[in-house]
């Protein structure tokens, strides 16, 4: 970026970002410096990409006019801890309105790709059209600035995401990091939930498939449609020395309250992944068998103390991150030492490819997660679509679908994952919304606005309805009832319309949510980082306003893509078949939801006017 001002909110045009535009059809590539229109453009991520998406009228995700936008955030590649994010944006093949129009989406992940991409000198790469042959994009740092090339990728076809990454790393060496799709994305016609994997140093050093993922919304499938199998970013390490100001911030991130719960237990932390299991189980709110907790102790079979007896758990971290939130699972050998790497246990995949499909054996759950990761699918969409199918089969013993799999039926579920990942099972690969429409039984398909919900019971989070890019990470209300005990209407309206939407700030600036998940990016910590890294003077109010505008722009874009207000709701089973086992106040009956909808829209609606440009194409 070229920064020619100290006041980005007042004078955004004095900040220029470097954009590459690749026409995949012709192979032409254009590089340009683009002046920022507003603070959202400066911050980056979806704050910028959604403004570009809003300029286009897209009626089908798989069309040449639908771009794939790859960008970073302002603090990606900086010395601020967790500054590793890469964003992938486009109109989604899986999320869409009932009118049949695709929704704009972004997905994001950490790993080392983001910083390497940024250090080449590029801030954004837009892929237009579709390549006639499989290609990968090579982005390099040169003496003249960033260079972008398209390379033939026939040799990568059919490889897993990890195999593609290892092959490209062997070719380009130490300064290279990779973003790649797996077989799922390659089979985009039948798999709408393809993810993009991002390589890590740990992966390349160990040879183990420890990638990170930009999972949500099928951005890997869009990449596959474009015949773009991977991106390689090759640059020197440009991490500059950390200033005392940023050091103080980083220390606060690691030692402060923000991340303590994510740190390993051995360091006095909460251990990450399993805190959600422990807490939600206390309320009998851990999703079980397609989001129907049974009021028993079944979920405890995948709690840490049970898992520890069967596998070795190692706490590891992203590159130069002190939070150490990864819980990597290894085979336990006879002498108790660690054997083969099995999978990374995050809460969502563990639950949705474990407890919520009736799998309570950690090694089996790890195997399913491992497959999902290597075919490179969104574990949330995959797990929830499978749990829908299993629920359907349980309800229809005489006419089961597909291979007749039932909850806990590991072998058959494994077969579903393999077939979905290789594009042979569109019923699963196209997601729960389409599958449930085909069966005619939609009430227990656990998606909102066409996108599967994460592993928090909808009974605990009516805020899902207004999440703009995935159920919990784009609307931070998932803990409002469980953690904060809020069950009154005012708190929910305030949470959805003001405080909890601020979580999407992390999807602009390049930081991971664990930087400060409770407070967001509108804090003195972020202000200090921006001042120290770029000499930018920004206030927390300016940041909050930019985040709010970006969120509202996302909401306005949903409405323009045909969403009706009736679609801002939860799966109907929540009120049609109330679950008495969940020990929390009931806030998802129809009366509560109706009032919530009325009051939330009363706040949002007046602010939506004028946020979107006229769509061109």
């Amino acid at each position, binding site marked *: 970026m070229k920064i020619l001002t100290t006041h980005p909110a007042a004078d955004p045009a004095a900040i220029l970002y470097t954009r590459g535009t690749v026409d995949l059809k012709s192979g032409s590539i254009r590089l340009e410096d683009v002046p920022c229109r507003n603070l959202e453009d400066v911050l980056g991520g979806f704050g910028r990409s959604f403004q570009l998406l809003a300029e286009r009228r897209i009626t089908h995700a798989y069309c040449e006019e639908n771009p794939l936008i790859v960008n970073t955030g302002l603090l990606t590649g900086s010395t601020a801890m967790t500054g590793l994010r890469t964003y992938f944006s486009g109109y989604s093949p899986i999320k869409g309105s009932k009118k049949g129009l695709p929704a704009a989406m972004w997905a994001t992940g950490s790993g080392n790709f983001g910083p390497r991409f940024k250090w080449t000198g590029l801030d954004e790469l837009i892929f237009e059209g579709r390549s006639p042959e499989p290609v990968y994009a090579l982005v390099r740092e040169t003496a003249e600035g960033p260079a972008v090339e398209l390379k033939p990728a026939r040799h990568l076809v059919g490889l897993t995401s990890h195999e593609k990454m290892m092959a490209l790393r062997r070719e380009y060496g130490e300064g290279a990091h990779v973003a790649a799709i797996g077989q799922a994305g390659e089979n985009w016609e039948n798999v709408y939930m393809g993810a993009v994997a991002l390589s890590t140093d740990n992966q390349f050093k160990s040879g183990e498939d420890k990638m990170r993922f930009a999972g949500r919304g099928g951005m890997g499938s869009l990449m596959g449609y474009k015949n773009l199998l991977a991106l390689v970013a090759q640059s020197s390490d440009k991490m500059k020395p950390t200033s005392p100001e940023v050091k103080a911030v980083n220390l606060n991130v690691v030692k402060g309250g923000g991340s303590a*719960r994510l740190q390993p237990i051995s360091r006095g932390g909460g*251990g990450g992944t399993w*805190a*959600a299991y422990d807490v939600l189980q*206390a309320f009998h709110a851990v999703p079980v068998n397609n989001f129907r907790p049974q009021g028993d102790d079944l979920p405890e079979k995948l709690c840490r103390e049970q898992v520890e007896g069967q596998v070795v758990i190692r706490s590891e971290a992203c590159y130069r991150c002190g939070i150490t939130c990864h819980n990597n699972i290894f085979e336990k050998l006879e002498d108790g030492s660690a054997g083969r790497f099995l999978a990374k246990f*995050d809460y969502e995949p563990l639950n949705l490819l474990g407890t919520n499909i009736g799998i309570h054996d950690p090694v089996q759950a790890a195997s399913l997660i491992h497959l999902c990761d290597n075919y490179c699918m969104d574990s949330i969409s995959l797990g929830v679509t499978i749990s829908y199918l299993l629920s359907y089969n349980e309800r229809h013993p005489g006419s089961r679908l597909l291979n007749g799999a039932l909850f806990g039926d590991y072998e058959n579920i494994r077969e579903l994952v393999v077939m979905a990942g290789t594009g042979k099972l569109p019923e699963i690969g196209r997601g729960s919304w389409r599958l449930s429409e085909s069966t005619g039984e939609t009430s227990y398909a656990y998606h909102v606005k066409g996108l599967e919900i994460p592993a928090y019971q909808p009974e605990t989070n009516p805020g899902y309805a207004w999440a703009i890019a995935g159920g919990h990470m784009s609307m931070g209300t998932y803990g409002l009832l*469980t953690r904060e005990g809020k069950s009154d209407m005012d708190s929910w309206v305030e949470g959805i319309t003001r405080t909890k939407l601020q979580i999407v700030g992390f999807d602009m600036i390049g930081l991971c949510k664990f930087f400060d998940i409770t407070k967001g990016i509108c804090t003195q910590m972020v202000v200090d980082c921006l001042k120290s890294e770029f000499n930018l003077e920004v206030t927390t109010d300016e940041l909050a306003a930019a985040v709010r505008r970006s969120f509202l722009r996302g909401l306005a874009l949903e409405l323009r893509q045909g969403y009706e207000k009736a679609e801002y709701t939860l799966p109907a089973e929540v009120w049609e078949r109330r679950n008495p086992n969940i020990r929390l106040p009931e806030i998802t009956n129809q009366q509560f939801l109706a009032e919530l909808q009325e009051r939330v829209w009363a706040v949002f609606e007046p602010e939506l006017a004028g946020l979107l440009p006229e769509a061109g194409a």
Partner: protein
Amino acid sequence: MQVTVRLVGVFRIDRFREERRCYPETATVRDIVCELGIPLSLLGIVLINGSHAAIDDQFRDGDTITLLPFIDGG
């Protein structure tokens, strides 16, 4: 007075799952947390008889106090 203290998740490590314990009439949840050496940075939720409560809330004889870690998403 006697209360039941329930611990959840990591708070059980080197402590207990559930125990009957004695506290003075004026005690608050914070007194329990401090006595048990639970780091405040890890404490996410306090329940008194199953309802959400604050750390400085008092409790009554016979109550059940549950201490849960933070839940963070992801």
